[in-house]
């Protein structure tokens, strides 16, 4: 059976390399679903929720990712991001606390500062969302 190979890399390590039957990516312009045989693609990613269905079976898995980009070619999905946290590794309470803290900072920030903070707030929010998936 043709499957997809998902490789998730952060600057600190290769986090994942798994066979899966489909991958969901948070594209900058909207969510994307990648199935085997997808055309070659390069896209930027917004902070959000990456999901995949392991080929080995079992439940669908979720990973919170920071902004980055992805490359799809030859049924291999390579995702590069600054941080990534699989759902099972996230502590929901501390994720929520971090989100609230950043959101408060965002509200206090000036308009120019907000631009720089936006991605961090969204990343924290993604982590909270993903933690709720387990």
């Amino acid at each position: 059976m043709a499957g997809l190979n998902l490789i998730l890399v952060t600057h600190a390590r290769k986090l994942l390399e798994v066979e899966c039957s489909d991958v969901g990516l948070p594209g900058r312009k909207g969510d994307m679903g990648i199935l085997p045989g997808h055309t070659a693609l390069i896209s930027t990613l917004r902070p959000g929720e990456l999901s995949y269905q392991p080929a080995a079976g079992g439940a669908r898995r979720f990973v919170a990712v920071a902004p980055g980009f992805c490359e799809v070619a030859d049924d291999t999905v390579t995702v590069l991001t600054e941080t990534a946290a699989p759902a099972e590794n996230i502590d929901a309470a501390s994720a929520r606390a971090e989100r609230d803290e950043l959101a408060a900072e965002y509200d206090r920030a000036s308009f120019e500062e907000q631009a720089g903070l936006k991605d961090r707030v969204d990343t924290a929010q993604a982590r909270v969302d993903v933690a709720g998936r387990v």
Partner: protein
Amino acid sequence: MASLIDLRRRIRSVKNTQQITKAMKMVAAAKLRRAQDQILATRPYALELRKVTEHLAAVAAGEVEHPLLSPPEGGGDERAGAGRTLVLVVTGDKGLCGAFNAHVQRRAEQEMAQLNGGGEILALGNRGADFFTHRGAPLRGVRRGLFRELSYATAQELAAEVSKAFSDGEYHAVYAVYNEFISVLSQRVTWERLLPIAREDVTGPEGGGAGESHRDYLYEPSEAEILNDLLPRFVTFQIYRVLLESQAAEHAARMTAMDSATKNAGELIDALTLQYNRSRQAEITTELIEVVSGANALEG
């Protein structure tokens, strides 16, 4: 000639120093291993980042005008000397690592003297910060205690500041001087341009377009927009890599320096012990002669 007690005290003190240098060597070895692992761990990211950036730069060549990218047609060198230069000098936070810090500082001063439009230094690490502040060199700023907790966030913050200053036209180029980690026994002082990003840097040595880069990709959003998103990440990653290299090189240099210090202390102890034994024997001989000649005098 030193008395026996003095010699014994001296030997004890050298032994203590030797123990300290031996411990420092072992600590540096452990830290070096961790720093090396950290460098290796960034490899997959580096490869993929370079691949995609090269590809995009090749595809979008000519159409892309990004402030961080050098203008096309080798314009990068033409601009040299046209304005001020920012130099990132990466030193360690601590000494006791041989000529590690001194080499970087000397190279930085040499290069600074050759810059046409003048330059400013951003000193990273306590050692460089102290050195250049003391010398009264033109400083943009200093960062202390950088290596105590080296993280990607540090690099992000630095990259943001440097890129902004560069885009605002404060500097016409940004360079980095640092110790590159070659092996445990050798570090090389490297002078490297960070900004503007050279087109050859992102298009690869064979001019990009070779091999699989010819694949027809779908781009979302456009090539240029992706590239604009990518270039700042590229800069951040370069700075992160420079910091990691320097960190590994520092531990390696300290390890070597402490190893030879331990060896030197060993030699010193041997020499002192020899001297100690000799003077002890000389003292015994003198006492014997005194006793014998005293007895002779009584008999006579």
